[in-house]
């Protein structure tokens, strides 16, 4: 068994917490694992990516092109940017919402949202695409988007990590006062996949 997962987003969205939750869950299941993430300068609102791998015969933390079992996108733009890492027949679990890059706001470059969504649903892989930010706000805070995404991953990720395990590990990582919001967000993420 070898499972590879890419997690992409914008610095500050909570990608690191989500990747830590998945790593800890894999660790608890007894898997050997490797992961790596963007730290430093790009964390300030830049494009960020985490690579997570667990299972047997693992060496590199970086996933080669076309080898990721799952792509978790916190942001539509960033999901499209890294989709080449996803394997055929894999699964893309992507937030339909996105943070507009500055160049788009000032009209220096274009982003065709409808085209990007069509592209994501045209993959030779399963695509789960819905507004996760909206569900996070419904749960209590837009900052709980990572919990929505983890909830969706727990259902659709095709990983050996059970929803109960992922939820518990995630809640252990966040301050107690945010437990309720994140539990609800995780649940809404799950429900959106049924």
């Amino acid at each position: 068994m070898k499972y590879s997962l890419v997690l992409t987003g914008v610095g500050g969205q909570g990608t690191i917490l989500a990747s830590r939750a998945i790593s800890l869950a894999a660790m608890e299941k007894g898997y050997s694992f490797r992961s790596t993430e963007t730290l430093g300068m790009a964390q300030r609102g830049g494009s960020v990516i985490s690579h997570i791998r667990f299972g047997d015969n693992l060496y590199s933390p970086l996933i080669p092109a076309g080898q990721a079992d799952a792509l978790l996108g916190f942001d539509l733009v960033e999901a499209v940017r890294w989709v080449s890492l996803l394997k055929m027949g894999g699964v893309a679990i992507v937030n339909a919402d996105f943070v507009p890059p500055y160049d788009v706001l000032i009209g220096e470059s274009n982003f065709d949202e409808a085209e990007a969504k069509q592209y994501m649903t045209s993959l030779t892989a399963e695509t789960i695409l819905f507004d996760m930010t909206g569900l996070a706000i419904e749960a209590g805070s837009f900052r709980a988007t990572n919990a929505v995404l983890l909830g969706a991953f727990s259902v659709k990720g095709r990983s050996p990590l059970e929803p109960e395990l992922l939820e518990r590990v995630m809640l252990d990582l966040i301050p107690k006062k945010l437990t309720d919001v994140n539990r609800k967000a995780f649940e809404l993420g799950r429900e959106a996949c049924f």
Partner: protein
Amino acid sequence: MGNNAGTRMLMMGNEAIARGAVEAGISVAASYPGTPSSEIMGTLAGWAKQYGYHAEWSVNEKVAVETAAGASYAGARAIASLKQMGLNVASDAVMSLAYIGIEGGLVLVVADDPGPHSSQTEQDTRYFASFAMLPVMEPSSAQEAKDMTRWAFELSEALKLPVIVRPTTRSSHAHGDVTLGEITPPKKDFAFKKDPRWCILPSLSARKHVSLVNSQEEAKKLFSKCQFNWVDEGDADFGVITSGVSYNYVKEALELLCLSPRILKIGTPYPLPDELVSNFIGGLKRVIVIEEQEPVIEDQVIRLAWKNKVDIEILGKRSGQVSRLGEFNIDRVKSFFETILEIPPDQLEPISEKQPPDLPGRPPILCAGCSHRAAFYAFKEAGKKKDAVHCGDIGCYTLGYAPPLETQDTCLCMGAGITIAYGLSLIEKDRPQIAYIGDSTFLHSGMTGLLNLVYNKANVTVVILDNETTAMTGFQPHPGMGLSATGEPAPRADYEKIVRGLGVEHLETVNPNDLQATIEAAQRALEFNGTSVVIARAPCVNRVKSEKSFYIDKDECSDCRICIEDLGCPSIIIGDDGVIIADTCAGCGICVPICPTEAIKEVTP
């Protein structure tokens, strides 16, 4: 963290390095933050009280290395952790230390950043190690990072030399499962023994140079038997030599190519373990060398083959098939093998029949509510009539280079903003020169430059962007914060007193979020004939949250978009119905005075 010897833990490479140092029984740890090395001290500081060693954020890397060296002189084990540029700052100390030597084990962890992801250069510390003639080790995983760091102290004491451990971004910032070892409590009964060997004079240097050269052979012998160098057996008509994180890419690239040559994995790139390498290349006709960054191992292999008169084809960077640029990964390493072995590359089928849409770039930007944005806006306003030059420095505020602020016309290295501005002012006497420097960077290497300005009667304005933390690298304490690395209260450096003490006559302190007051202070500083300093002080928005938030009154907004075009705040965006302020607004309120129609208003509960 307990002793927990034998248990498995999830660890980042940098945490594993910290654990290795604790297992080795360090007495002193010193560091200055820098990506990708910062978490080493972050972790060590957290464990310091429990295990009874001293951990500190030093004022700069040179100070950190010298502090660790002093502890080593007394016989204690000590570690200094830095990034590759930090080694440049500390290089004066390190070069001389190689001659003088050590008493207690001294390990310098220098994290390199191929890519680079968060650095000014892609320099290879293994070159520095060979230049200084210091042994260097290079981990391939978090487990090895821990084990190597621990062993490095023994090696250092055996050779009486500082030893460099050189992780890279993908070992420092990679997580893995690590099996812990026994922790050695630090000894207490060390004492410095007076001896002429500690005082570097030319006659001593000449003698020490001889022993330094001789120690290279001794290091090679120890490395030929060490656990971090090994051979993976295989069968092919070629062999592979690799090191560090590249080993991982080699293993998986070869698996994808269904090849299984013998692999010599090197954990000690300098000095190269000659005996081991000689044995490996002895029976081969072809060897491929795969190492990230510079051909450090490859050049040593070429020299060794020449010395041994071995008839072998050595393929890698010098033969032109392997890159010396950027970060490696499995795909790149696979393509190097395909080129060398003349294997047609298999075309990856696209994941969609459609063409992917054009994507906008997304470079890092100043956070919503960042006080640097306000300071930049104010000084840009004050300096625009005379086309002021805005000299930058290293920190979050380097991000002011980007549109729309564009207030980092230069950025070179830590502390250089002040002195580059001074050099420019000598050539263009009538053009305003503004130098920006952060609170931590000012203490690191800005004070000497500022004194030079005063002494030489420079006409430069220095802006100290004091957000009361080392923000870019992860909010590490520094002397301006009144807090030690281990969270104890510490004497707080007083910037106003320092600036006055250096002889600056024109000094003002402002809150940059008071935009009008800052513009006026900037104008007065620029009009002053001489060295002027403005301290722009407001806490980093990631540390102190504002209670305020703002919205745009649709009825008042003329959709002129000046707020977007002048500030570049990530919270001011275009919604379905015109310009809006997003949930991410941090409440600095600097957009309020710049709106020509007064449409931006505070949310009242």
